[in-house]
């Protein structure tokens, strides 16, 4: 009996203490699905306090994972971090709603290039995507190990800067020394650029053949395919591979410097050009009421001066509001220096990502290439 009383009392206490935590916040709830880094505590906590709301965060590692999660339960999320190449896909799947940019007081602060670029124009006169930052795919090389072997693949572009050719990805001398991100859109588009295709997001049948030939050679030369920031960093610092194509360039630059191994590595842009993603927010169709208000406030905060400064500091990618430029770390300024420049002045050809001609075919093409390896 005594045991039962103690058990009941404990249960009552647990319930009692859980009530404040379970109680809905006055300001409502904002549910975010995003890449790691886009919902940092340094701005999420003040946001929650300012609007007396709760921010629920779910992370996803790839654009495909974002889409799959949203498609499976669109009502579960209010805003989703999304790159320029996926806006059409979300729109076609009926997952997103137009964003009333007149309710974003910081919207005019976004650079003209990003406001006017037609990358996300899926319905005339309407905005479905608000950009927050941009980035490209390029190389990180362990120059301390590779050394002079890299020379034949480098080109000077002035100002003491060099760019690196994609040829390095298929060079027999670098067999099992290279890696790349295991994501179909990135690898198919970049290998298309390397194959001389100038429209990497709209491949014809002939383009597909050229791209597959090129990508198969890259894949055969790779030691491992990376799965995101952590696996990429582990492979590079563990010296299991020395050359990596990466989209996490700025984050890696900060992390490698923090770890004290920054000097061993050099970042290079690809000579032939590269793809550029413009990350931003989309609002899901079912979002309304307080959640919609919070969604707009969160987006507005992130494009404002303070939000952009924090983003430059924490993430390091190119920002879309120049007022936030003071946030860049020295590692980013020195190593991924192109993010401190205007996107108009990017030193190599830059292809802004738009939805590919057939995203599913790209996924399956990449899967087929991988499936043929190791036999």
């Amino acid at each position, binding site marked *: 009996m005594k045991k039962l009383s103690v058990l009941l009392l404990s249960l009552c206490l647990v319930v009692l203490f859980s009530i404040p935590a379970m109680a809905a916040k006055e300001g409502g709830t904002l549910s975010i699905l995003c890449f790691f880094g886009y919902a940092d505590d340094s701005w999420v906590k003040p946001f929650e306090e300012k609007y007396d709301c709760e921010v629920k965060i779910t992370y996803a590692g*790839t654009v*495909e*994972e974002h*889409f*799959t999660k949203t*498609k499976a339960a669109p009502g579960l999320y209010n805003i989703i971090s999304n790159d320029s190449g996926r806006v059409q*896909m979300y729109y*076609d*799947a009926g997952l997103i709603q137009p964003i009333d940019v007149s309710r974003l007081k910081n919207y005019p602060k976004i650079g003209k290039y990003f406001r006017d670029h037609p990358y996300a124009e899926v319905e005339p006169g309407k905005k479905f995507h608000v950009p927050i930052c941009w980035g490209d795919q390029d190389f990180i090389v362990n120059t301390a190990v590779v050394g002079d072997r890299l020379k034949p693949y480098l080109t000077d572009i002035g100002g003491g800067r060099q760019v690196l050719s994609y040829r390095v990805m298929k060079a027999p001398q670098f067999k*099992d020394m290279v890696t790349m991100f295991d994501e*179909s859109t990135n690898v198919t588009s970049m290998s298309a650029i390397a194959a001389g295709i100038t429209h990497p997001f709209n491949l014809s049948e002939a383009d597909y053949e050229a791209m597959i030939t090129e990508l198969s050679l890259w*894949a*055969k030369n*790779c*030691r*491992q*395919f990376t*799965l995101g920031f952590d*696996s990429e960093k*582990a492979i590079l610092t*563990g*010296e*299991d591979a020395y050359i990596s194509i990466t989209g996490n360039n700025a984050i890696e630059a900060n992390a490698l410097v923090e770890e004290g191994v920054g000097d061993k590595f050099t970042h290079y842009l690809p000579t032939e050009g590269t793809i550029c993603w413009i990350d931003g927010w989309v609002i899901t169709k079912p979002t309304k009421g307080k959640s919609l208000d919070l969604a707009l406030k969160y987006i507005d905060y992130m494009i404002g001066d303070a939000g952009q400064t924090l983003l430059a500091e924490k993430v390091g990618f190119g920002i879309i509001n120049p007022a936030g430029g003071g946030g860049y770390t020295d590692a980013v300024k020195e190593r991924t220096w192109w993010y401190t420049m205007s996107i108009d002045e990017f030193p190599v050809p830059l292809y802004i990502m738009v939805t590919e001609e057939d995203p*599913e075919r790209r*996924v*399956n093409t990449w*899967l*087929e290439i*991988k*499936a*043929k*390896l*190791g*036999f």
Partner: protein
Amino acid sequence: MKSMKELPNNKRGKKRGVFDKPRSYIMGIPIIFWLLIIIITPVILMLIMSFRQKVGYDISNILTLSNYLEILKKPSYVKILLRSFRIALIASTLAIFASYPLAYYISRKIRKGRHLLFMLIIAPLWISYLVRIIAWRAILGNKGLINSTLMALGLIKEPLSFLLYNQFAVAITLTYISIPFVFIPLYTALEKIPVNLIDAARDLGANEFHTFINVILPLCIPGLLTGFMLAFIISLGDYIIPMQLGGTGGMMLGNIIWSQFGFAFNWPLGAALGFILFSIAAVILAITQKFGSREGMLYE
């Protein structure tokens, strides 16, 4: 000691069916209900999904065999299935060879600290799956434990790159992951063998080797098969280890299934591949049940 066949009928006891008494029948309902919810329903849903088809960004309700036909049309998928089979077979065989001596010595030879050793062998199960995999990266990598030690000893000048990011690394890690699952049934089977049987074998002149071959090994076959089956099924469906340690040539069927669900948004094709994997596991389970069961009772 008498075998069951030698016992008179009145000593065998009346064999009762599970549902002979209404009370047993009622008590079985929650179990059946539970099994239905957590095992049978998901499998049925997966089976139905495998006959549906992806149309644009939606999944059509029309049932078709197209996903299964697509799998058959792609030789690379069949090759990957065979590779998965081979790696799972190697890993589960290695797990048996690694676990059997451990289980044998702990259950039969060690008197003091037996439970501590048992716990030490199953302790990895308390650690996150991913952490255990990453640990192997730290062991097998170019700057990992093995390479660093060999280089420090002056045995090699360059790191041995064949240790990581290939099928070898996948097989080794799957073996390590499977060891506790093989060890537990083996230990149980070995521990249950009556000492009198071994004494009897010795009395009849059998040496240690012959006692092992003729008495111990046959009696622990059910445990051996259960362990093998668990290791094989765990290895066959894994996708995290090949993804983390398999390099470019370590892809297994689990990775294709994961890609279909996570990247291509082709749930029906992923479900069809998953159902094929499930069917293989079910066949293996049935075979092990058939050959691994030992009926009868031992009376002292």
